[in-house]
Structures are given as C-alpha cells and as structure tokens.
C-alpha cells in the first residue's frame, strides 16, 4: 500500500507492506537512522518519535497508522544547524554516555516539556519512565531535562 507521512516537514511517500513498522519506515525508507531500535518489544523507548506532536514508540506502531500524520524524529530538531534546547542541555549536562538511548530520551523529553513546561524533578522521572538507559544512571538525563525546561 502507498502511504504518505510528513517526516520532519518532508512529505515521504513510499510503498509499504501493511506490517511495516513505523521505525522501519523511518530507518529503511526515509533513511533516517537517528531513531534506534533497542528492545523491539515496546519496553525501552529508544525508538521514541513524535507522532502529531506526541511521543510514541515507533516499534509499536505500523507505518500505515501514521499515514497522513506528521512525524518528528531526532533529525528534525535542529534549526539552522543549531541544537534545540533539549539536545543542547543533554550535551551541557552530560546526559549521555554510549548514546544509544539518547534519541529516544530527547524525543520523550521534548514531548514531556510540551505537556509540562515547568516540571518538578519527580515529573521528569515519572515522565521518562518509558525510556531505559543502561549507562548514565538517569541522574544527568534528569538534570538535562530540568535545565532545558529553564531555557525559554
């Protein structure tokens, strides 16, 4: 079937099998490999993207479900070659080590700050419960999201 998804503002039209997962569409058809597959079982959040502005696990969605939607991936966050505030604070606060969870963490954080612009530390920890990180112990990730929230 033919589907069209606006990915980071570019209209991507491709022929897919209905069983194609959104994450496959993004990585293999749109050639945007910033979005990672960690667990492939909806547990880790590495594959998190925004679908119509809200975080979703792209390994647990069919691309066909996003037909006609706007999807934002990690590649879509920069403007004029500059990091957005969440990316910048992950760098500043050392919110990553190996980086495998980072794209998903950043996308989940962008969605969270949209919903809770001035979060408490507990809001951030609960808001990121769908994202696992095996390296950082979460501390600097939480610091990064709190720092991003202060950038207006």
């Amino acid at each position, binding site marked *: 079937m033919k589907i069209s998804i606006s990915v980071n503002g570019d209209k991507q039209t491709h022929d897919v099998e209905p069983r194609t997962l959104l994450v496959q569409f993004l990585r293999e058809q749109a050639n945007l490999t910033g979005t990672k597959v960690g667990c492939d079982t909806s547990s880790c959040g590495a594959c998190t993207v925004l679908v119509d502005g809200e975080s979703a696990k792209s390994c647990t*969605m069919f691309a066909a479900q996003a037909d006609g939607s706007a999807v934002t991936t990690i590649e879509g966050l920069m403007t004029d070659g500059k990091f957005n505030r969440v990316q910048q604070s992950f760098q500043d606060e050392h919110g990553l080590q190996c980086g495998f969870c980072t794209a998903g963490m950043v996308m989940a954080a962008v969605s969270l700050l949209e919903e809770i612009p001035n979060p408490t530390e507990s809001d951030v920890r609960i808001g990121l419960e769908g994202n696992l990180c095996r390296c950082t112990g979460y501390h600097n990730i939480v610091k990064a999201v709190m720092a991003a929230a202060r950038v207006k």
Partner: protein
Amino acid sequence: MIPASFEYIRVDSTEQVIAGLAEYGDEAKILAGGMSLIPLMKLRLATPTVLLDAGRLDDLSYISDKGDYLALGALTRHRDLETSDLLAKECAVLRGVAAEVGDNQVRHRGTIGGSVAHGDPASDLPAVLVALEAEFVVEGPSGSRTLASANFFKGFLETELSETEMLTEIRVPKTGATNWSYHKFNRRAQDWAIVGALAFRAQDSSRVALVNMGSVPIRATAVEQALASGASHAEAADQAAVGTEAPEDSNASSAYREHLSRVLVKRALDEALV
C-alpha cells in the same frame, strides 16, 4: 520482530467496523491504540489477517456529562482520561488510575476501549470500571446492547464481546472528586501490576478492587462486606485474598501475591477511607 502479513483497512465509522467484522469474522481484529495488539502480533501470538484500524474514529473519542452518569467513547485515550477536567470533578478515581497505565508513550496511544476489550486481568482500568459498576455499550450486526461490567470479564483475555461486536461506549457513575488510592506493585516503573489494590468511596459504600489476582479483574467483596459491618481497616484487609485465584509466574508465587494483596489493600484503605 515483524508480524505475519495482514490486510490493513482504515475505517471511518462504527458501521464500517461492524460490516468488516461481519465479513471477515475471526480473521479480523479491531486495531485501536495497538498497545496490546501490536506486541502480540510481533510475537505472532496473534495473527489476524485483516486489521480494521479504528484509531481515527474521532466520533468515539469523548468524555461527556449525561446528567446522572458520564459517557466515555471507546476510542478515548488514556492521555485524555488522565488530563480530563470533567473526570477530575466527577470521577477522580478513573482519572487517577488512567495516569498509572504504562508510560507516556503508551498513554498517548492506548484507549479505554482497548483495555476493556483486551480483557487482561493485569490491566488497571478494568478493575476500576468493575468497582465503579460501569456499563459497556456494545454494537453488533443485530444492534446494540448494554452490558454490566460485573458480568463482562469471563477469563484471561476473554470477555462477553463476540467476534462480530465492537465496544463503543463506557458509562460510569458520577462519584465526584472523592478520595481514592491505588497501590500498584511492580518491578519496573512502566510495567503492569504484579498486584494492584484500589480503594475509594462511591454512593455511600466503600469499593475495593484487585488487579492481577485471578483470570479477571476482581471486586474484593469480602473486604467491602467487612468494612460495611464495621471491621477495622486491618481486619478488612485480611480478607483481601478471599475468593481470589492468584496466578503464579516468574514475578511472584500465588502465596506472595496473596500476601501482597493484603498489604496493599490495607495501605489503600488507610489512604482512601479517612
């Protein structure tokens, strides 16, 4: 992991869902948020050959005040429940429990109707709906019927819904902004409850429900009766495991679940019924 092949049909109306179910029978499945169905399909534990994607049926996404009860469209997402001002005022317990389902990503997509139709005894919303004495409106080829939540859940992933029916609406009484408490015991933050215990007041009675203590969501009637006859919270909570058939799995033995149910019910009673 890639699911088995299927035909994908995006439906625009309830009628189209009913017609699709009539045409394809048990080959077809309704796709709502996909938060339970897609993981099962990826593991090939479910292999429908037709998916009727109801995800864009916005007509079935609402929370409305019907005077003496609230009506919720089956496609209403957990996210809409947990942020609803109407629920905060008229049925705070449902709003609060919805916020405990999975994680943000799951709540952005999963629906109340999917949670009910899936019939997983480890799910949070079915237990609160049973304790609320909710009603479920179901559409099928021969019209619509309204079912009591008390008789709806039949067994593990088994409900009163037939293969040709769609759940369209959930009706809950107005219980107000009264105290409630839900204790969900799990190992990872986003996980299903190993055991969950819920307590709240509604219509002058104390309601207590249990998650993952049997093959269906459970109303803890022994605890409720003990409270009604004047027992203390500790005495009532001792009855928590009465009549349950707690499952045994890698997370917990039945005996440990029974222990948890008593401890968690006691905590929930102390918080909710003050």
